[in-house]
């Protein structure tokens, strides 16, 4: 229908929706769930005779909940994809869980209560990953420090700390080994090439 006969507000709203669709369409990969939802809303707006008619035709979607939900699905789908490229397994799992929860949400309260920021199982998963990465950094730092120490007593004490860091890493990644340090995500943290790593591995194995 031509917008010629529509009220100004209705026309403005259609232009508002068009502007949003245009922006989302510049990055269809990130916004893939929002775009069709917004296009659906735009179609309803175009078919409506007036602003009031549009609100009536939207029915229970008058609050734009499907759009808010699709934004959350897009958010966690993008995060899942990003974390897959850097191979942070806990973050991948956390994002995938949240995406599933978002897909399952039925109203705004669901979105607000079931996708909390900063706590919940996702937070625990991400915390475990954070602690493991820090433990890898400490493990490598301590191993070099161990090699630099002259006092045998200090060395014995430090080796216990090194073993504790090793256990911490293996508790959340049982397959972790020195070879892992050249693969993602550990290669992002490890500054040592193969030869230096072999040196540190030998020191670790000989002194446990």
């Amino acid at each position: 229908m031509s917008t010629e006969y529509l009220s100004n507000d209705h026309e403005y709203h259609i232009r508002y929706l068009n502007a949003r669709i245009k922006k989302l369409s510049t990055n269809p990969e990130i916004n893939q769930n929002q775009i069709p939802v917004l296009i659906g809303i735009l179609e309803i707006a175009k078919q409506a005779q007036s602003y009031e008619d549009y609100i009536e035709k939207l029915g229970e979607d008058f609050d734009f909940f499907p759009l808010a939900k699709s934004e959350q699905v897009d958010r966690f789908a993008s995060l899942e994809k990003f974390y897959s490229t850097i191979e942070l397994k806990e973050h991948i799992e956390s994002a995938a869980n949240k995406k599933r929860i978002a897909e399952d949400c039925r109203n705004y309260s669901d979105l607000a209560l079931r996708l909390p920021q900063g706590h919940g199982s996702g937070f625990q998963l991400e915390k475990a990953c954070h602690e493991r990465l820090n433990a890898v950094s400490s493990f490598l730092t301590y191993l070099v420090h161990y090699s630099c120490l002259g006092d045998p007593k200090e060395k014995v004490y430090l080796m216990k700390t090194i073993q504790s860091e090793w256990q911490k890493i293996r508790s959340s990644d049982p397959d972790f080994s020195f070879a892992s340090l050249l693969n993602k995500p550990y290669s992002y943290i490890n500054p040592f090439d193969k030869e230096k790593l072999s040196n540190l591995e030998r020191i670790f194995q000989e002194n446990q």
Partner: protein
Amino acid sequence: MDASLRELLDSYISGFKMYLPNLPEDHTVKQEANQLISNMESLAESSKDYMGFMQVAQEQDLFNKIIALQSTLAAESSKVMTKDLKNKKIPTALEIAKAYHLAYDAISEDHRTPEVKQVYETVFHWEKNSQSGPEFLMHMEEEDLFLQMSRVHLASTMRKGLKDMLEAGSEWTSSGLGVISNPQLEKYFDTMEEAMSSAKTLLEMEILAIREAENSRFSNLWDTVFIQSILLELVTPISAWKMAKTEANRLNVVTSYEYLCGFWGMDWDGFFEVPRAWDFFEKSIFRSLEESLKNLGINSVEDFKNDLKSCLDTCLKGKTIHEAKKPSKHIVNFRGKEIPLTEVMDALSSAHL
């Protein structure tokens, strides 16, 4: 609380104020936002300085939580406005823009950059010149003002954050220069600003922010291990021996030097020829000790290096450590690739995920 930290908090809080007045007190998301603000205040109170706060905030992923929560608040505000529509009450431009006045009022003078002023002036122009709420919202969307309000606000906060970081410690160094050597964090602020400019929606901005935060986290962890193993393990035992000239401390100097020469395939001068190691040595170690070193007649970073070398020679007691320079060892693993030690500074400044 540190004045610059107070400004940073006020700046973030003003971002929330854009949306909070639109929601009732018992609204779950509003309560969550108030809780986050309260947590930020507590963290700031308990942090010893600006950098301490930034470090913990980054570890807790606080900045991404802020962006995510502001995005949720925006959606919730939109829902409240749509409810008004359902009741056949079309909001006026004045009603919608009320929150943006509150947000602007909360921005401190320091953060009212020309860009910030320009964006809000445009928002208030359309508030005055729109006949209704829908017309106002249309102009806001067509001229990208929702995103720009968040963008200019964050950009101004980040620029201030970078400036504060680079100047950290300058109040007590005799040269008046800062003591932070952190190319990856400098890069983080720059890249974030670039990323924010390219984003078309708050969600895109959030995803880009998370990517940059992870990039920065990895670079920081990498650099911590690197600096420790190529520089601090070298100079810390010498400093300990200078403070307490015990046989145990002397032995640590000899052992560490011997091990590091073999590990990196270089001698004393070689370590200081590594640009990243020298940058850290000059900015973070020398500048922070500059004042006390002057009392010992050490007036330059070169003097300081030579003083440490003379201590090393004393500890070695004539022992010669034969480590031929081995260029094959002058490499590091950087994100899965082997690169020369000389390229570490550039790698940290240009790393991306």
